[in-house]
């Protein structure tokens, strides 16, 4: 086998792992990094995005629009959840663990009752291509590009726009932001919606490639949490490098010794990184300034 083929396959595997890590994590990272809320219902927002995407696609919407629909509906559900529940818990972020755990129970079982135990898939578009001895799914490349796009978009949104500054201010000292004229409730709603929408986007993007069941969100959770933690509190400085580091570890370990080692490698990476950089990668990047 020639070097180019090997190289491409390594790159492809890396990109694939990177996309999954980053897309799984972004929504969680926004909600945790920005609001300090540990959203245990993150997987259910992903499931919501996937379900809406699949059902609108079944109804005849072209896939990109269906994914958009999934994203938007998740974001709307996010607004609702924020209004009804999360809003009352900013002062005590640890309680959000309980509340979002409760929400996740409601969402999973509610979906099972209302939609049934499974949903038909939509099929992966675009087909495959061949490099050397291997054939690859084109859609996986799309996922990788989507992950890059999401990272870039988020970075721009939170660092270059007024919304980003206000959101970060609101999270840090809410009463002071309010006293300076920031409508903190709106900011909270929008931020949470953004996180929920990103989760929905991940669900929508992966919907064509996965089993659609009410508990599907669970398969994203570990990767999501690991990425967020390694990234550290600052979402934008952290998530991208964390995605890179973890994707390398995961794809190398998996290709070397199989999926179990890929997973255990991830978990060991968490422990080592946190030991070496107790505040995650972004904490390290910012260490001079804190």
């Amino acid at each position, binding site marked *: 086998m020639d070097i180019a083929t090997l190289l491409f396959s390594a790159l492809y595997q890396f990109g694939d792992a990177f996309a*999954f890590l980053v897309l799984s994590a972004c929504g969680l990272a926004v909600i945790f990094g920005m609001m300090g809320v540990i959203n245990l219902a993150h997987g259910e927002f992903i499931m919501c995005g996937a379900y809406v995407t699949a059902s609108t696609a079944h109804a005849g919407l072209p896939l990109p629009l269906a994914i958009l629909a999934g994203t938007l509906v998740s974001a709307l559900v996010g607004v609702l959840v924020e209004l009804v529940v999360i809003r009352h818990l900013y002062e005590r972020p640890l309680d959000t663990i309980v509340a979002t755990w409760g929400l996740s129970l409601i969402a999973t079982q509610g979906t099972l009752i209302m939609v049934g135990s*499974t949903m038909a898939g939509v*099929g992966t578009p675009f087909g495959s291509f061949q490099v050397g001895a291997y054939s690859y799914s084109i859609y996986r490349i799309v996922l990788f590009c989507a992950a890059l796009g999401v990272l870039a978009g988020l970075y721009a949104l939170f660092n270059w726009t007024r919304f980003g500054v206000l959101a970060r201010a609101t999270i840090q000292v809410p009463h002071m932001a309010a006293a300076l004229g920031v409508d903190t409730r709106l900011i909270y709603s929008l931020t949470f919606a953004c996180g929920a929408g990103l989760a929905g986007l991940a669900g929508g993007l992966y919907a064509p490639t996965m089993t659609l069941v009410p508990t599907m969100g669970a398969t994203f959770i570990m990767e999501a949490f690991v990425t967020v933690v390694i990234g550290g509190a600052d979402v934008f400085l952290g998530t991208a490098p964390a995605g890179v580091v973890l994707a390398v570890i995961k794809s190398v370990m998996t290709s070397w010794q199989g999926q179990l080692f890929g997973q255990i490698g991830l978990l060991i990476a968490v422990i080592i990184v946190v030991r070496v950089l107790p505040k995650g990668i972004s904490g390290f990047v910012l260490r001079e300034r804190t």
Partner: protein
Amino acid sequence: EGAIKLGVLEDQSGDFAAATIGKVHAIQLAAEEINKAGGIGGRQLELVIYDTQSDNTRYQEFMRRVLQRDKVDVVFAGFSSASREAYRPIVDQLNGFAFYNNQYEGGVCDGHMIVTGAVPEQQFSTLIPYMMEKYGKNVYTLAADYNFGQISAEWVRKIVKEAGGKMAGEEFIPLGVSQFSQSIQSIQKAKPDFVVTLLVGTAQASYYEQAASANVNLPMASSVNVGQGYEHKRFKPPSLKDMFVTTNYIEEIDSPGSKAFLAKFKAKFPNEPYVNQEAENSYLAVYLYKQMVERAKSTKRDEIRKVIAMGDVCMDAPEGKVCIDPKSQHMSHTIYLAKVGADHSISFPKVWEDIKPYWLGEAGCDLTKKDPMAQYTPSNPPPKP
């Protein structure tokens, strides 16, 4: 004498719900039929149903409850092998009587248990030689990384070797994993003639869609998919094209017995997405229990086991004729080879009748003589007497 009580512990929510809700419905259907026809030996059959939520601890809680509080005569319980192992010590301790109506990795040698599901020797001794003959002797196994997957893979390895084939590779996937790009590439690298997929749980089923979109295009063989998780109904064609499954029942089986069963099932539960092999196992188990109680004239386990020991507890199930093996208290089955077409339609290139669960008996489990209340595996067989 009052009603006969049958406890039902099945996962109606959580991870396994998709494959197991149908089991509960099948039991309800059978009970209704039996009660309409006069019950079991004149006694009505009463169901005590709990939702175990795909959670092992719920099995432990509710197994105690049905045995001690509800005082049921028999329990039908469990989907995953872990849940079975969770409740088995309690059944043994409290001297209960339980049916495990599931296809599984085999090896349970326990007088308190009857197993109606198919076991590896029934599914693989048929499937693997067929595949090797048809496609070649180079085999790759992709299996769930836990007892069921590992033991099944062990069977595949053994049979492939016996038939003069060779393992091109093997990979075990942790439960809950849903991303397969690397595994797909490993398979392509190994260039097998076909892939044995022993993927369990809804997450792992994502493999098929992902393999199809990467254009892997290899025939697949499985003992667990289609028959349990009806993946051919859930995924868009042609992702399961050329998948071969040995199963003792699926709803596409075109025999009069199957059609009648399916009709009754769909009449009572019109929204049932699919009637899988576990549903049929559960359904026939109720009738089997009826027969045994009527012959034993008792619901006592010891009396019923005396009937089993006679070796002629058989019935005509929707799949065909089935019998209980007295040594292992497992069941012989009609094994269908289901082939998934490009449009996800099912055809049956081959049917094996009366395939026996021979391994436990041959290995040394004989419940008519001794009850070790244990689970064995080919690499950990019963101690020789």
